[in-house]
């Protein structure tokens, strides 16, 4: 089983995206590389928070994100989404479609659904989905719970969730965060990098 590590910029950006739009669905893609010790998920690019069932802007955003990743020497390695409801942790059909597309370009692609119940806690609020065949995605199960000490899924540092909560509550960094939907309304918004929303001590 491949192992996956989620690094701070990726975790923070997913978190900020969900925190900025608490009553909406949000989604985006993950960037990273494959190394000898597994997949490093280094960054995330947020896509939509509006009309998440509709495809044209998603397609364009995905394409632009892929090109940006390439320019940095990174791959698109996964997809993330958050639902508007706490109890809805399924990877919606739209999600499966995008995740499968990412998997076409990166065999070890992973999808994360944000666990709304864990968002405010010290635990990683991500539920991993893996695809066995070309388009069916299932929640990943193994002996250890995801992001626990023996799991194939790890955070680069265990304090990421706590730090993320603090950054939202104290510094309101999520307010400076913008996704592709925001960018389409104002092209000055830095949706590909979100440099202004990242803490100085990253």
């Amino acid at each position, binding site marked *: 089983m491949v192992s996956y590590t989620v690094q701070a910029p990726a975790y923070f950006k997913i978190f900020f995206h969900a925190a900025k739009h608490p*009553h909406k669905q949000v989604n985006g893609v993950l960037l990273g590389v494959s190394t000898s010790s597994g997949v490093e998920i280094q960054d995330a690019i947020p896509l939509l928070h509006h*009309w998440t*069932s*509709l*495809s*044209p*802007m998603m*397609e*364009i955003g995905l*394409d*632009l994100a892929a*090109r*940006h990743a390439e*320019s940095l020497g990174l791959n698109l390695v996964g997809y993330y989404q958050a639902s508007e*409801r706490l109890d*809805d942790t399924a990877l*919606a*059909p739209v999600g499966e479609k995008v995740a499968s597309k990412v998997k076409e370009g990166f065999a070890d692609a992973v999808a994360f659904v944000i666990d709304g119940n864990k968002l405010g806690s010290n635990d990683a609020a991500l539920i991993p989905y893996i695809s066995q065949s070309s388009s069916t995605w299932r929640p990943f199960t193994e002996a250890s719970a995801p992001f626990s000490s023996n799991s194939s899924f790890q955070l680069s540092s265990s304090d990421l969730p706590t730090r993320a909560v603090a950054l939202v509550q104290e510094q309101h960094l999520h307010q400076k965060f913008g996704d592709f939907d925001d*960018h*389409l*309304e*104002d*092209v*000055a*918004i*830095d*949706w*590909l*990098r979100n440099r202004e929303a990242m803490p100085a001590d990253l």
Partner: protein
Amino acid sequence: MSIASALQTLANYRSHSARASQDIVEKGEEVLKANAVVQLGDEAWAFLEQLTLAAIDVGRLDIADECLEELAKTFPDSPRVNVLTGIRMEGSESPDTILKFYNEQLKEETANPGIWKRKISLLRRMGKIDDCVEELSTYLDTFYNDLEGWVELADIYASCHQYTSSLQALSHSLLLAPQNPFYALQFAETAFTANDIPLALKMFLVVIDMCERDLSTPIEAKESVPSGVGVRAWYGLKLCCRRALGRSSASSSSSLTSQSNTSLPDLKKLQKLDELATERVLTAYSASARGAEGKAVVMAWMGSTD
């Protein structure tokens, strides 16, 4: 932040029905603490309603209860307050309890649209999509002018991949609000998702037309910089043209199918539209007053032919 400026911000939020719940609660709490509600005169009730909703949204049920008590005292048996009571219940009770409450309310006064809509949104939240759609359709039969209802119906259908029904619902929105480019845009994007490229293309053009209505001369149009909804529509147009041109290349014989039987513009026009859309989007990036991010990838995307 003075009470006066807080009140002004809150009034602004009310006029736009903005869901800035965190901010509303912070400012609203200050107003309550300063006993300044009386300053609002008649607006006091709208303010309390606004604060109730925002407080429930961020989980400050204590504030919500305080406001609701005041409202219930002053307006006993008011349908509007009843709706707020229901929403407050939604913040802490189980869905089945709330559903029972709404059904009881609806038995008493069947035409309280506020309660009916809360029931519909509750059904959606519970995942009872079939019931939700049935109730919403019946609701819209009675209250045809409820624009928000048609948009919600379209959204529900789209989330279930029922794009034809979604477009039908949106066509009512277009009838009710013909000047608003957002509904035409939603229509265009839904048509694209349904793979009806000719229809999507046509509707993106409609959006662009709405956005550029003020540009009366060709020179004005040429020198204008697309912004806001316009940028999204030009992007959409570009995507449609690329699809349409890709299919009509020499190798493939079938033209794009359109479920709505919309015809495509001819090849030459398509190419011109493609050029125009490219130029307009790139202008939005190069001429943006505050600079633009990610221009390089956009240019590369424009240049590719797949």
